[in-house]
C-alpha cells in the first residue's frame, strides 16, 4: 500500500510539472506550481525528511507562489505570445531533456550500496550540542558557516532587489496593498495571523528537538506579515527605516557575534561551549527567525514603489 501511495504521489508530481510546461497562461502554470510545491511537501514526508517537508510547503508552496503570482499580476498587460521555439526545436530539446533524465536516473540507480552516510557521526556529536534534532544540529553547529553565509545571501538578495528601485523612490516603501481590498481578505488577515504567530513560535521552540526550526518559523511569520500588509491592516515599511534594518541584521549579527565569542568561550569561531550550547543555539534561532521573516517578507514585497515620506 505504501509503495502504491508513493507511486501515485510521484505520478501526480510529474503530471503537475508537465502541466507547467504545457499550460497556456503563466498564471495557470504558477497555480500548478503552487499545488506542486504543496504536494512536494507531502512527498518529502514520505522519505522521512520532515524538516525539509515543512520548508518546502512553506517556501515552495507558499511564499514563492505569492512572489510569482504578484509578478504575474504586474506583467499582465504585456503583449501576448512571445517568440517561442518551433516544433522541431521543441522536439530536439525534449529528446535532449529525456536523455538527461535517463542519464540521471541511471546515476541514481548506480549509487553505491550500502550508502555512505554521516548519520552515525551526526548522532555521535549530537550530545555536544545539547540538541535533539540532528538537522538543526547540522544547520547551526556542524555546518554553521553554511547557514551563516546563506543568511548573508538572503540579505544580499534583498539589497539587490532594493537597488532596482528608481533613484527617486529608493529608501521608500514597497507597495503590496491593492486599491481595493476584498472583504474576505481583510477577515482572513485578522483571523489567520494569531494562528500563524502561534505556529511560528511553536516551530522555532520545538525545532531544537523535533522537526521544525528557524527557517520554517521565519517563513510562517513572513507569510503572516505579508497577509497583514496585503489587507492594508499594517502599512508597508519604508526600506530606509532604522528599526526595519536592525530587525534584518539582528539574527545574522547575533550569529556572527556568538561565532566570534567562540574564540573566547570555546575552541574558536562558531564553536559553542558544551554547557551552554543549547541556549546559545536557541537564542540564535530566535533572532534568526525574526530576521528571516523580515527578509523573506521584504523580498516578496519587492523594491520601493512609493517615495520616502521624509
Amino acid at each position, binding site marked *: 500500500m*505504501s*509503495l502504491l501511495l*508513493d*507511486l501515485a504521489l*510521484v505520478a501526480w508530481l*510529474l503530471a503537475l510539472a*508537465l502541466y*507547467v*510546461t504545457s499550460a497556456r497562461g*503563466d498564471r495557470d502554470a*504558477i497555480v500548478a*506550481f503552487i499545488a506542486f510545491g504543496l504536494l*512536494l511537501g507531502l*512527498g*518529502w514526508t514520505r*522519505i522521512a*525528511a520532515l*524538516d*525539509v517537508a515543512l*520548508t*518546502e510547503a512553506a*517556501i*515552495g508552496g507558499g511564499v*514563492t507562489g505569492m512572489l*510569482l503570482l504578484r*509578478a504575474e499580476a*504586474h*506583467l499582465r498587460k504585456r*503583449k501576448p505570445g*512571445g*517568440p*517561442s*521555439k518551433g516544433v522541431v526545436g*521543441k522536439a530536439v*530539446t*525534449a529528446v535532449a*531533456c*529525456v536523455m*538527461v*533524465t535517463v542519464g*540521471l*536516473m541511471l546515476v*541514481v*540507480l548506480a549509487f553505491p550500496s550500502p*550508502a555512505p*552516510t*554521516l*548519520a552515525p557521526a*551526526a*548522532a555521535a556529536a549530537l550530545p555536544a550540542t545539547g540538541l535533539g534534532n*540532528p538537522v538543526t544540529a*547540522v*544547520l547551526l553547529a556542524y555546518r554553521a558557516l553554511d547557514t551563516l553565509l546563506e543568511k548573508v*545571501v*538572503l540579505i544580499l*538578495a534583498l539589497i*539587490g532587489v532594493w537597488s532596482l528601485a528608481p533613484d527617486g523612490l529608493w529608501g521608500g516603501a514597497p507597495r503590496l496593498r491593492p486599491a481595493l481590498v476584498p472583504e474576505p481578505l481583510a477577515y482572513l488577515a485578522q483571523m489567520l495571523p494569531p494562528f500563524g504567530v502561534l505556529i511560528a513560535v511553536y516551530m522555532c521552540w520545538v525545532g531544537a528537538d523535533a522537526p521544525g526550526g528557524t527557517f520554517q518559523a521565519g517563513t510562517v511569520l513572513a507569510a503572516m506579515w505579508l497577509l497583514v500588509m496585503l489587507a492594508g491592516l499594517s502599512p508597508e515599511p519604508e526600506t530606509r527605516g532604522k528599526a526595519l534594518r536592525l530587525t534584518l541584521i539582528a539574527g545574522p549579527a547575533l550569529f556572527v557575534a556568538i561565532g566570534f565569542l567562540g574564540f573566547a568561550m570555546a575552541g574558536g569561531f562558531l564553536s559553542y561551549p558544551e554547557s551552554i550550547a543549547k541556549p546559545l543555539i536557541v537564542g540564535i534561532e530566535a533572532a534568526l527567525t525574526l530576521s528571516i521573516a523580515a527578509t523573506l517578507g521584504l*523580498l516578496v514585497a*519587492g*523594491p520601493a514603489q512609493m517615495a520616502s515620506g521624509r
Partner: protein
Amino acid sequence: MSVAALGPATLFGLCGAALAGIGLFVVITHSGLLRRIVGFNILGAGIFLVFGAVARRGAGAGFGGDPVPQALVITGIVVAFSATALAVALLQRLFDLTGRETLEAAQEHSPRSEA
C-alpha cells in the same frame, strides 16, 4: 529491477531526475521569463529530491535519513527562493522600463509607448 524492489528513496530519486529534465525543458523552450523562473524552480526541486533520495538512503543511527543532506536541502531551498526573488524583481523592472518580458526579442522590440 522489479517494481517491488523500489524503495521510496530510489523512487523519489528517479522522480527527482525526471523533474530535473522537465524543469530543464521549461527553461529552454519557453521564452517568457516568468515561466522560465518557474522552470528553474522545478529543476531545483528535482535536484533537491535527488539529494533527498541520498538522505533517505543514508538512514541510520536511529534517524530516518542522513541529516546532513537534509540540512543542505533546506539551505538550498532558501537560496533558491532568494534567487527567484531577485530574478522576479529584475524582470518587473525590465518590464516597467521596456514592456518586455523576454530576452530573445531584445533587438527587434521597440520600447513600449510611454504614454
